[in-house]
């Protein structure tokens, strides 16, 4: 492990514990239909060794954000503004060569579908070895030893034999384990997991989530965990960021956000999911309408066309002014703190039990 060298070169300029710091990130894609504002003024921090959950539906910008952190967006069609600081190093303006040195080394990613995310043309072992050889200058033999060690760590039976197998010879859960092993090859400080269990069955998902949690304890990586599933995030994350239509709408610790949510969108998400121990006679309360197109997003608060509480806000604030998201525990909503609290207690909480 290289944890020793890491603590030495950590100047931590952005805050006491902030390891990754994203400031006012804007990502725009030009498409044939116009400009898609995929991410619009997003700021967040990830602490060393902690897990930040990012929850949102399709089109919320959660995956785009993380591809941008790794610098994997298409430079021809996308325009990036803002700051991404990884351990004090600015990534948005960093040259490609430097990003290459960081990717797979200091920051690694786990993708959603391990079947398509691993190359069908090369053995699992070879795909695992490559980053280790590149970043550590390791020999083929050293990389192989490391890969077998990692495969064993993530629970692949007979790792020496499976090293020479191709991804399609693995089952779905085993493939995702191999993917995790690959991400951990160089002991990254930051691990980005983009819906890592969405393609898996529920019993396999439980295995993989626990495995990730336990591996984090051992490796000490910070994790950004992206998902649409509040249940998953509730078990995985320390802090939580709720995204809607390219913006962060609520932020706080997982406990705070899930137990005393303040944003109408978070309320909507929570009360549209049935619980295993919920009251079966209580009908679900869905969020009306569907997520907006990011080609032409709503003005003001992007959630206002679907929001049931715009009537409680004076004037046309919701439809013409973007609600700010304060630092720390906060929700980007024009309702007053008093209103948020009383609406939650009176109207939302009773539905959740």
């Amino acid at each position, binding site marked *: 492990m290289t944890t020793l060298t890491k603590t030495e070169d950590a100047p931590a300029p952005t805050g006491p514990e902030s390891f990754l710091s994203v400031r006012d990130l804007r990502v725009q894609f030009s498409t044939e239909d116009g400009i898609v504002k995929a991410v619009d003024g997003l700021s967040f921090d990830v602490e060393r060794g902690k897990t930040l959950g990012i929850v949102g539906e399709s089109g919320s910008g959660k995956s785009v954000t993380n591809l941008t952190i790794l610098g994997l967006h298409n430079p021809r069609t996308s325009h990036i503004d803002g700051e991404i600081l990884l351990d004090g190093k600015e990534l948005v303006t960093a040259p490609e060569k430097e990003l290459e040195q960081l990717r797979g080394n200091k920051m690694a*990613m786990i993708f959603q579908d391990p079947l398509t995310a691993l190359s069908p043309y090369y053995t699992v072992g070879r795909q695992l070895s490559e980053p280790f050889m590149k970043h550590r200058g390791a020999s083929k033999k050293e990389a192989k030893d490391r890969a077998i060690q990692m495969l064993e760590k993530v629970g692949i039976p007979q790792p020496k034999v499976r090293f020479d197998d191709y991804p399609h010879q693995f089952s779905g859960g085993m493939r995702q384990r191999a*993917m995790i092993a*690959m991400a951990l090859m160089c002991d990254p400080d930051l691990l980005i997991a983009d819906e890592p269990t969405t393609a898996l069955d529920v019993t396999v998902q439980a295995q993989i989530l626990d495995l990730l949690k336990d591996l984090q304890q051992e490796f000490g990586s910070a994790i950004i965990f992206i998902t649409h599933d509040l249940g998953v995030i509730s078990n995985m994350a320390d802090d939580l960021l709720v995204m809607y239509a390219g913006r962060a709408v609520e932020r706080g610790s997982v406990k705070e956000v899930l137990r005393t949510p303040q944003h109408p969108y978070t309320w909507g998400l929570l009360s549209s999911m049935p619980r295993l121990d919920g009251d079966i006679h209580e009908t679900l309360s869905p969020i009306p309408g569907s997520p907006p197109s990011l080609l032409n997003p709503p003005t003001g608060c992007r959630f206002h066309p679907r929001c049931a509480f715009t009537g409680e806000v004076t004037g046309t604030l919701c439809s013409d002014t973007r609600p700010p998201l304060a630092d720390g525990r906060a929700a980007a909503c024009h309702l007053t703190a008093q209103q948020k609290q009383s609406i939650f207690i009176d109207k939302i909480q009773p539905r959740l039990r």
Partner: protein
Amino acid sequence: MLQFIIRRLAGAVVTLFLIGAVTFFLFVAAPSDYASLACGRDCSPERLDAIRHALGLNEPIFKQFWEFMSGIVVGRDFPDGHCAAPCLGQSFYSGDFVWDTIMDRFPLTLSLTVGAMTVFLIVGIGAGMLAAYRRGSLVDKIATGSSMVLSSFQIYFLGPIVLTILVYSTGWMEDPKYVPFTEDPVGWLVGLSIPMVVMATIFTAQYTRMARASMIEQLAEEHVRTARAKGMSKKFVFFRYAWRGSLIPIVTVLGIDISALLGGGVVTELTFSLQGIGRLAVDGAINKDLPLTMGVMLFGAFFILLLNILVDIVYAWIDPRVRLS
């Protein structure tokens, strides 16, 4: 894999047999009398009968078929001498053995195919991949634009233009001609350079577009993104991860193209006044020369089947999922 190849080869033999059978019976069923064709205008009944006998046309039809088929494997005897295996019969028209005629013409066709293919594979795939690598750049625009224009050309259009410029107007080069490679490699290349280049130009345009499209598709694959996410350089990912998958559609089309080229391209041969397999096939059909037509047909079919098997083997080499299933 071996089982697979054996099974495919066995299938190919059966297919060739069926193709032979169908062609044979179609020609026999056709309403023309080969003996009187071969006999010519002032034909006496005795002579006609002699020719019938010589051609074996008075034998029962299945016996004729059997003799034709067994001739391919063990050879057969004709009044003019022994026709060694693989014997495809004797031309009604010229009296030559069909196999010898094909072997006489084939080197030219093979030369054109190999020459043109070398050029269009290297230039076409190279340009296509470069265009994909630098997508949106000037290189890409030139490659895409010129291949768009060139692929709408035809040999009978481009050929005469090139001939007019290089041969008839300026006299810089001689008319295309075939010199055997074994006799004079330089003469071989010079003699066939114009048709090779003209053929290659048109194919290059197609392969550029195909390689570019296929590469761009591969670059959008998730596993390519994963490779980038673990810090591999753009170049490494391009040549290691994306390149392999992009070959699959190219190999598919290449198999079809090569077998068509080896079966003979009439238009090319006519444009450049060359005597290849394509001309032979047309002559055979015009002269109702049954053995010749059947021979060329089977010869072409052989290549189609062979290339099909080769393409499948290449698939297995490219993609372990094919190999291991």
